């Protein structure tokens, strides 16, 4: 507990800077993402990792050079299952382009800003990178290092952003507000007015998670859903189950559970089972354990996603840039589909590990499913 607390405090202090620089409750961005959600994505059908929503493409002819290429990648880390799935998917994407990629040079920053900064510096000084892909660990801390890198090679960032527009493009699903809108809208539509919802959050201060929550809160207030409380679970299953059990003990019946991330959603559901209560209306994410529970218990549920296929997109974008082909930018908004009852069966696969993220776009890649831990 104490160790964990120290880690969270450290993470918070790191996250504090971007928290000042950007608002987590920005009505303009909320409205913008709501618009994007309604737009049809452009790009090849059936390949959402190559599609983009809204925005425009940018000319990259000045980066054109002959292949094969040396692609450098500075990874924030593989410290959680989402990143593990994404990283596996990215490696599989590299394998698909053997003739174009001479070398794929990777540094794992192990979730440390200082390590990632020195990783980037040493890659640029010693490795002759043709292009640098960065998945930044934290927003503010990595900004100067990326600004420096931009002066030497084309840079592509994905997932968490940085406070500079110097990268050729920044790849990211529509965003946190969209997640909050999808999930809260679904819950509000499936409970009666005045229904009671508990919000479960991982931890405060992370931009993606904060925006998910602020959007959901707006929707709940708009629709008259009563928020009993918002609790931080640290992403810990035992803690999640205990918190939900406490709420059930205190309020009797809870009508819905909203989650800012799905990794502990099955623990929340089990609290209802163990208390002998009716299942709540709930949102999870595309984790297999949640999808399977959804199917077997016939839940009223939705799974907005933060697709791991963006790790594929980073490699695809890098190759486009080096070949001088236009890419969506300066922000490449990927579609972030929500899994609904209608397409649940398409994503459920009991042969995959519990925290495999189904929206990986990896089903037809070489080595699936073993490479992702499946059978």
């Amino acid at each position, binding site marked *: *507990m*104490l*160790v*964990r*607390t120290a880690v*969270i*405090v450290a993470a*918070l202090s790191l996250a504090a800077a971007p928290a000042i620089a950007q608002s987590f409750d920005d009505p303009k961005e909320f409205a913008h993402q709501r618009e994007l959600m309604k737009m049809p994505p452009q790009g090849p059908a059936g390949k959402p990792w190559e599609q983009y929503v809204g925005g425009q493409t940018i000319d990259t002819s000045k980066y054109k050079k002959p292949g094969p290429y040396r692609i450098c990648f500075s990874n924030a880390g*593989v*410290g*959680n*299952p989402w990143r*593990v*799935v994404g990283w596996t998917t990215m490696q599989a994407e590299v394998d698909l382009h053997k003739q174009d990629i001479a070398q794929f040079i990777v540094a794992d920053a192990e979730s440390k800003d200082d390590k990632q900064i020195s990783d980037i510096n040493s890659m640029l000084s010693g490795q002759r990178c043709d292009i640098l892909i960065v998945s930044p660990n934290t927003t503010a801390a990595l900004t100067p290092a990326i600004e420096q890198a931009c002066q030497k090679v084309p840079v592509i960032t994905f997932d968490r952003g940085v406070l500079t527009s110097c990268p050729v493009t920044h790849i990211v699903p529509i965003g946190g507000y969209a997640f909050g809108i999808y999930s809260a809208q679904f819950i509000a539509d499936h409970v009666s007015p005045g229904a009671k919802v508990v919000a479960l959050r991982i*931890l*405060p201060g992370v931009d993606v998670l904060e925006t998910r929550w602020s959007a959901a809160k707006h929707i709940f207030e708009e629709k008259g859903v009563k928020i009993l*409380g918002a*609790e*931080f679970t*640290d*992403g*810990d*299953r*035992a803690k*999640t*189950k*205990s*918190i939900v*059990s*406490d709420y059930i*003990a*205190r309020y009797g019946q809870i009508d819905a559970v909203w989650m800012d991330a799905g*990794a*502990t959603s*099955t*623990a929340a559901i*089990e609290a209802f089972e*163990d208390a002998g209560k009716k299942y709540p209306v709930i949102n999870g994410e595309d984790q297999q*354990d949640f999808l399977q529970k959804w199917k077997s218990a016939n839940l009223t549920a939705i799974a907005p996603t933060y697709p791991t296929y963006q790790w594929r997109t980073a490699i695809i974008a890098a190759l486009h840039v080096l070949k001088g082909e236009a890419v969506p930018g300066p922000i490449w908004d990927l579609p972030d589909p929500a899994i609904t009852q209608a397409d649940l069966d398409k994503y459920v696969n009991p042969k995959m*590990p*519990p*925290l495999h993220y189904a929206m990986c776009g990896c089903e037809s890649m070489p080595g699936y499913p073993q490479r992702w*831990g499946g059978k």
Partner: protein
Amino acid sequence: MTVATKQTKTLSARGIAVIGRLNASYLAFLALLIVIACITPSILEPAGFMNFLRRGAPLAVVASGQLFVIVVGGFDLSVGSLITLTVMGSALLINNDPSKTWWVIATMYGIGLLAGLINGLVVTYLKVPSIIATLGALLSIKGVALAWSGGSPQGYLPDNFRQFGRLTLHDIPLLGVLPLAVVVLVVVVTVFAWLLHRTNFGRLALVVGDNAAAAALAGVPVRQIRILAFVLSAFSAVTAGILLGGFSGVSTDAGDGFELQSIAAAVLGGAQLLGGRGSVPGVVSGAMSLTALFTLLNLLGLPKPLRDAVQGLILIAAAAYSVRRQEWAG
């Protein structure tokens, strides 16, 4: 005359010592229960109280194992990662095949006993201070668990594994409901209490913790006693891993923080750091007080950073209080 006075004094001092040792955690537990009951009266109903005990069971089990190491004058920081390894490893090995549950549980105890044995050997023969030895074990065991699973949970735990932490028996006379985890808790605690308070091993462990040099001169097999303490602690960690995996399922976080929580529970329960004193019932009550504290902070709905701060302060205050009581009691 003088002899008689001295004896009465020792007796009454002992009486105070017993009260002193018991009071801190028992009173804390009672007080916390009353406050929780003001918010949710259901905790005082049999079903509510049993659920509470179930939630506290993993910590109580680890803390009473940890107590043996503390009593002989050490710390076991590896229990948390051993819990993680138990949960992750069981899921990997069982792979959702209920017929494998029993041999996997046996394997996990084997791994746990081996880890405890290594901890004990490193501390006694290589003479590495236990705080360093088990900190090393913490890192390597966690590393093994994450490397083995590739950093994210693999496989599922079938129902016959999860029942230890999840199943609740209904229609039990007097109690109404009885979670299986509480049965496991009672069995483990009874065995541990018997070991510490009723056997030669337990008495010798207290002697070793009080003064190892004197114990060695008196012919006590100090090394064996210490090694056995680490083995018992590892055994309790594997048991807690099975309970915790059963309660909440597979995750890489299972067991995080248990090393410090179990030491805190032991101190709350009147165990003396650096050895020589401690009681199993006291430590169980210490663990339940901590669980009650976590529950209460949840119920109060304080913002997380404030909750952590309050929790830290209460822990320090409680530990200081119980140390003081021991000093007053002499």
